[in-house]
């Protein structure tokens, strides 16, 4: 159990796979920079892997001051125990005050294991992180500059702010796309700290037999326009209209959980808390009632158009434009209007 170290750095776990840094790691670098500036400390990134030193530049460009490089052949593919050992060793040695990890398949496997070893608190899937003084209502002690870990809870029906008074580091995971990816400053430099971590046979208990990686078929994150359909679309056939509108306007096709569960479209298209979080220039929600889990994944879009037959659907609460009516009539009208303008 580690005591608070108020001079400690703000750290990011620099997740990489097959020689590529994960986007969420770069998004978190920007957040770590911001938090570090608020606290007046440096921002650090832990970079475990095999032959990954080159990636440090990118981390510097996204706001990191110190890259803690753990280059080891046993870290070539992610495995829980060797990666946990690298992270635990460095946290114990440098005692950062905050450690943020991307809530990816890897991050959600790694962070709890590390937090358990350190007996530190860990808050999953934060949607916002902030710094504030907090008074413990039990002891009336005021704790300066704590990390506010803000996340939806209870199926997204409430927003909880979590703090960790004394069992540090303060750890949190954040989903991809939740923090904006800031543009890199390419000439920005920092320090590479080469770390030796012993990864002996006791950490290599899993044997990797085979690995199969699929390219992402749907690029929702990069899309400027997203046309998304929900349970109200009714059938796979009707979803063609969503594709038609996306084709006409030049956008990607998204979907709500109800559409996925109803078998209308593949899971790759899911927008929302358990799917992809998006912030396009334009989001058109068709036949989506707007459950909180869905809204959490798209409400940061610059412009939102909602089309629904139910005037009381919650989706209208986040919309900029609302059309109450039958999408089967409205979409063809939209396609026509778009073609006329082209």
């Amino acid at each position, binding site marked *: 159990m580690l005591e608070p170290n108020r001079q400690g750095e703000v750290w990011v776990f620099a997740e990489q796979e097959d020689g590529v840094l994960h986007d969420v790691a770069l998004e978190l670098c920007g957040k770590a920079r911001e938090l570090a500036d608020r606290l007046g400390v440096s921002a650090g990134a832990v970079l475990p892997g095999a032959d990954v030193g080159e990636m440090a530049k990118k981390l510097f460009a996204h706001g990191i001051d110190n890259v803690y490089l753990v280059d080891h052949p046993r870290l070539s593919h992610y495995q829980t125990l060797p990666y946990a050992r690298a992270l635990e060793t460095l946290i114990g040695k440098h005692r950062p005050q905050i450690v943020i990890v991307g809530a990816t398949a890897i991050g959600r496997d790694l962070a709890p294991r590390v937090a358990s070893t350190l007996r530190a608190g860990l808050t999953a899937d934060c949607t916002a992180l902030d710094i504030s003084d907090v008074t413990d209502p039990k002891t009336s002690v005021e704790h300066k500059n704590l990390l506010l870990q803000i996340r939806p809870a209870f199926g997204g029906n409430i927003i*909880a702010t979590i703090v960790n008074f004394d069992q540090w580091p303060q750890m949190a995971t954040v989903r991809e796309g939740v923090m904006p990816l800031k543009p890199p400053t390419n000439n920005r430099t920092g320090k590479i700290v080469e770390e030796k971590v012993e990864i002996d046979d006791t950490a290599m208990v899993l044997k990797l037999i085979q690995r199969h990686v699929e390219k992402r078929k749907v690029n929702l994150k990069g899309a400027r326009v997203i046309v998304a359909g929900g349970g109200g679309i009714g059938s796979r056939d009707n979803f063609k209209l969503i594709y038609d509108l996306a084709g006409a306007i030049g956008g990607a096709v998204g979907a709500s959980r109800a559409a996925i569960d109803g078998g209308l479209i593949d899971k790759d298209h899911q927008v929302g808390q358990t799917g992809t979080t998006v912030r396009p220039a334009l989001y058109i929600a068709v036949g989506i009632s707007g459950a909180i889990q869905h809204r959490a994944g798209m409400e940061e879009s610059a412009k939102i158009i909602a089309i629904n037959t139910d005037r009381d659907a919650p989706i209208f609460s986040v*919309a900029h434009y609302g059309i109450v009516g039958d999408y089967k009539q409205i979409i063809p009208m939209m396609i026509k209007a778009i073609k006329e303008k082209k």
Partner: protein
Amino acid sequence: MAYDSVVCVKQVPDTANVTTEAMREDGTVNRGSLPTVFNPEDLHALESALAVRDEYGGTVTVISMGPPKAADVLRDSLFRGADRAILLTDRRAAASDTLATSYILSQAIKTIDRYDFIFCGRQAIDGDTAQVGPQCAEKLGIPQITYLHEMVSIQDHVARVRRSIGHGWEIVEAKLPVLITVIESANRSRPPSARRVMRMKRARVPAEVAMEVKAEMPEGADEQLAAETERRVQELREKGLLIEQWDLDHIQADLSRCGLAGSPTKVHRIQAIVLTKEGYTEVQPSETGIKELIHELIVDRTWG
């Protein structure tokens, strides 16, 4: 070769169906008014364990931590084929965060002592953290395999499994014991068996018996209630219908690591999500209305 499994299950409020009736005037959620369900992924964890037993022999023990009402999910597990069920219930465990919860569960698993597999659902729908599984594995000092998609084979105490990695999969091998977290795509969970329901629907934990006795004898004196409870508990035990109930003392838990005291994360504030009904421009579902909308999107450079 037979394998023994422990399955961790949780009773959760049905957060997927929070209706307006469940919201209080001040916007907070009234947990009591929500129906409870067997955490969906835990059903798949249970199925994984039952499938191992059906193929290789061994036992399936289900544990749940929660209030006496959580015995519902244990009964359900027995109906579906579990051999043994244990309820961990103790007021001193209330308000545990994931670290404290995993400590308590790991102490219970150590008390069970014999296990080759621990199966957990990947995450529970009331918190969605996916932390308790990996944290239990760490506390037990055993490897974890998250996101089980398929049990490929088990041979000589080595399990080979296919796990999902989000954008693909990998096949890994681990020597037992191992903790595995299970996702929905891993299997189809079997329904309760009618025969087992008939046989075990009256199974109870002692705390439930005490509550039933109190409800039936509202005027009864304490000693009278205690005696009647003990009589019924004894009767259930003889019929093999008593679900084990453990507290923190039974699992030799260090109380400073349980409940609020053992939880590094503290809830500082809770805000209800209030839907605002303002601020959107209503567009008429007509050719003119939609033409104007597209025109506006071009003017403000959203599109085009």
